[in-house]
């Protein structure tokens, strides 16, 4: 199963690993130069912060694409192959989940390797420190959450996905209509708090994605 999954998602994994490896190196570009002014700490932090916005995007994209690629052949074959296997469904799903997770470990390792390499070769100004392991762990967890969410959505029927989308869309429509009618209803803030708040499912995507910080 792992081999077949690799065949379906190798391009995603390859480009994801490439981007993940390059991102930390690019974000610290110039910091390794000996002639870099130690006074440019603020510029360096600003650059690292700007590039840092790309880590959660990459994690979400990898989770989505690998989750979709994991189920795509089953959906195309109308699950005939899976049904012919002498396996209960939960075990089949678990194997699929595990194989996708193993493949995602490659871009996660690439980010970690890139971060370690970038901080090892850079000479940050005094007072600034590299956090390659923290960044790697953050990226790994964000990728895992994104993968699990999209894997769950892909594992369901189109009807389930439709219901989820419809509920989200209905909330937005109600909010827009309420705002237009001057009705004091705020659905977006509690929803945002539930999703992105400290205990929310996507809280891991928020916070500071800094490879170098004070």
């Amino acid at each position, binding site marked *: 199963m792992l081999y077949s999954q690799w065949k379906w998602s190798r391009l995603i994994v390859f480009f994801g690993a490439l981007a993940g490896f390059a991102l930390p190196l690019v974000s610290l570009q110039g910091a390794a130069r000996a002639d870099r002014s130690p006074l440019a*700490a603020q510029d360096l932090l600003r650059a690292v912060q700007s590039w840092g916005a790309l880590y959660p995007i990459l994690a979400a994209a990898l989770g989505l694409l690998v989750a979709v690629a994991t189920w795509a052949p089953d959906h195309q074959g109308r699950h005939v192959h899976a049904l012919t296997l002498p396996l209960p469904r939960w075990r089949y799903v678990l194997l699929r989940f595990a194989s996708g997770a193993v493949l995602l470990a490659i871009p996660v390792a690439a980010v970690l390797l890139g971060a370690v390499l970038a901080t090892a070769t850079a000479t940050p*100004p005094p007072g600034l420190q590299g*956090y390659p*392991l923290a960044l790697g*762990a953050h990226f790994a*967890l964000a990728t895992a959450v994104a993968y*699990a969410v999209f894997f769950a959505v892909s*594992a*369901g029927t189109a009807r389930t996905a439709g219901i989820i989308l419809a509920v989200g869309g209905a909330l937005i429509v109600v909010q827009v209509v309420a705002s237009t009618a001057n009705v004091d209803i705020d659905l977006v803030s509690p929803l945002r708090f539930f999703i992105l708040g400290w205990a929310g499912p996507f809280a891991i995507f928020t916070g500071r994605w800094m490879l170098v910080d*004070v």
Partner: protein
Amino acid sequence: MCRRLYVLALLTAGLWRPVAGQATDLARLRSRADSLSREWTRANAIADLADSLERERAFAGRDTIAVGALRIVTNPSPLPVRAAAELAWPALDSLYGNAAQDLARHPYIIRAFDPDTSVPRPAVFVGIALPWDMTTQALAALLVANPPMPSPDQTLVSWLDGTLRPGRRAVEERTDVYVQLVTAPSTIVRACFLGALAACRAALELQRSGDALDLWYPGAAERRALVTRSFADYFNHGAGAASFQACAAGIDSVCKTLLLRLPAGTLPRPLDAEARTTLLRAALRLGGRDAYRRLLADPGAPMGDRVATAADAALDTVLAGWRREILAARPPSVALPWWAVSLALAWATLFAACALRSSRWRLG
């Protein structure tokens, strides 16, 4: 001869007319200025009278609440004045020490009003007008932020960029200063961060003498950065553009000349007011209950001496203690706390479990 005299007379008459006109204008302007001055004096007298009458009225028929040396004169209302004063007094007492006793002679005057009434409030009044549904915490914060202490001398005010108030976010202020020490584009600030107390003294403007430009920005690179980043719009146009280009190309003498041409007081300070405030607070803590009085005792002394006198210690001791406090307030690391890791793993497991229980293949 006659012709000469005629020309001379004409010239004299021609010159006399503008001079006479100027004299008239001057007299007119002088009379207008005098009239403005008279109006100003009269307006001031009326304002003083109104103020004094209002002050009389403000104290009449009011309650006086006393907590420590705090005195609050207020009209009867549900506003939680006493509870707020009990919260505010320790903060004021701990900062000003014995000087806080002066507050007994300078009461707060609070006019509590009904927030729901449509009755118009008087436009002229003494003190602070507050809605009586204010919370105790909000009122306490207001009392702490506006203590009616006598104003300190102008030297201290301009060094601090304001007046010293009890800090409600002292830890955050120290953390902000830590970030400044690490990121400020200044060699003396960096040296201060690394432990050079002489550099801290210069960065905090506690040097007895010396040119601000040489003290604050001793390096050619930082002077160039200052011109090209902070004052690019100021210098890079018109006649100054050539000098700006020369400075940007690395000619330090030109950078220095340009910076010396800046109006007084516009050269950016290496550290902002927060740094000096945290230093002063550290000195007052070190100096005990009479520290604030000692700080104000000699307004003519250099700031470094005043800080040392307030702390009743050598300036380097104060600076070393301040630096230790700032370094201890380092911002939390970007590493995820254990609970965030656990939550992310729990959510991933929950979504994976949802996939296991999905409806696909289920009959019916």
